[in-house]
């Protein structure tokens, strides 16, 4: 499968990445190569195989006790934020 520049622009938008036209062309070429590599997977017969999402078979989710362990540290956490005001993170106005 080869990707066009348009395909790349669609994916980039989905992934929230700005790309210039030149970048899109370049990514179209490298992503096509990667997909070509990936297409080797088509040789295997997987019709009777269950997909595997996790490397340790049989391990199950542990459940946590419902107890409050967190304390308010928002000032510390917000030191990494570019824009905050009155404890809120700020983003450009969202229009619903």
């Amino acid at each position, binding site marked *: 499968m080869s990707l066009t520049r348009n395909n790349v622009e669609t994916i980039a938008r989905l992934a929230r990445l700005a790309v210039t036209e030149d970048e899109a062309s370049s990514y179209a070429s490298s992503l096509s190569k990667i997909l070509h590599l990936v297409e080797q997977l088509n040789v295997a017969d997987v019709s009777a195989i269950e997909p595997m999402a996790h490397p340790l078979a049989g391990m*199950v989710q542990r459940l*946590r006790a*419902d107890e409050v362990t967190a304390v308010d540290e928002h000032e510390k956490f917000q030191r990494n934020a570019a824009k905050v005001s009155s404890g*809120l993170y700020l983003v450009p106005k*969202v229009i619903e």
Partner: protein
Amino acid sequence: MIQTSNDVMTWETVIGLEIHAQLATKTKIFSGSSTAFGAAPNTQANLVDLGYPGVLPVLNQNAVKMAVKFGLAVGASVATRSVFARKNYFYPDLPKGYQISQYELPIVEHGKMDILLEDGSTKTIRITRAHLEEDAGKSLHEDFHGFTGIDLNRAGTPLIEIVSEPDMRSAKEAVAYMKKIHTLVRYLDICDGNMQEGSFRCDANVSVRKVGAEKFGTRCEIKNLNSFRFIEKAINYEVARQIELIEGGGTVQQQTRLYDPDKGETRALRSKEEANDYRYFPDPDLLPVVLDDALINGIRASLPELPDEKAQRLVREFDLPAYDASVLTASRELSEFYEQVTALLKGDAKQNTKLAANWVMGEVSAALNRDSLEITESKVTAEALAVLLSRINDSTISGKLAKEVFEAMWSEGKSADAVIEEKGLKQITDSSAIEKAIDDIIAANPKQLADYRSGKDKLFAFFVGQVMKVTAGKANPSQVNELLKQKLAG
């Protein structure tokens, strides 16, 4: 305002609901942050809730148990193995850029809920599934110098999303179904049901089709409806909009819409105009949730009596009308209040059930409404009401005076006996006292007596009134009737 089509009878409305119920856990679904409502912005958002680099989710056991409880209560199958998936999309109130939800293997599938229709018949709404997921934060659109503020306290609050089949055919049915689910989650104590705070809300999928058509029409999803009134209005508006659109030669576009309660309209959501491609895949940070039969059976055994079961029992055991039974079981607290009252009354159970029903649905509800109180805040407790009703049963006071006593109890916070004593309202059941009163009245009203005896039957009421007046309403009415009849007859 859109004109409703004359042709409306030829259209059928099809509605499916996705109800989001916040689970009443102490902490978030994947972190140890508190879920308490109303904290200052971002003070209940820890590293996990903020989606900080490197942090990982660990599942809250109570969220799982509550979802199982719900599943069992709607007769669904509870999955012994369910899987969390990531739903990928970007939004400022979604810190990780994905929502942890369940997709292919939800924890609850194939349930049902019966609703009572206006004609008194019952309809079954199928519940496709209910899955566990995390809530998003909140965007505050008030102007922060041209910015939107993000509060992530709500992010990570556990939700169950309850998805129905498109089985509802009117806004009223949708509201009835939503109310039933609302009642149920509160009975189960898994959701506080507070719609104003957003603990219980729904998205409605609405479409229309010609009556008799097999294929569904294109649907629109109305997001985030958080009052029963809005649901009904939003759906009705949307149905009319779609019919008008089609009849005008247009087609309905599948889209997400928002209900504006001020304008009473729905409008397409601008931020979601792009077709979503959520790229679901199993969350590699979480493992399959495996529940054994012992756990499920333990939860099953702990289920309270459910509203429908309780209503049916009231009808079956106490001959309560179906309507009364459904009103009294509409909330867990109301039904508990009611049952507490009946449990304290002695004597004929059927009679007491009806008496208590009339009082709870009548005086108590009216007083609560008047003072905008919840049943749990009632100024007359179930115990106090039971004492009052006992005084009716043992003929200490008449039903009519009891209402006066109730009002005094409500406003002054006193017991029934104290009010009766204080106001001297105790009923006169001593027949000699009543006889004496009657004799005095007959003696004082010879003309009325003569008229009555000559055939003016209506004057009987005059004599009753006079007796009650001199006894300040305290004479036992049936005794008064009986003795008056004897004496007037001469």
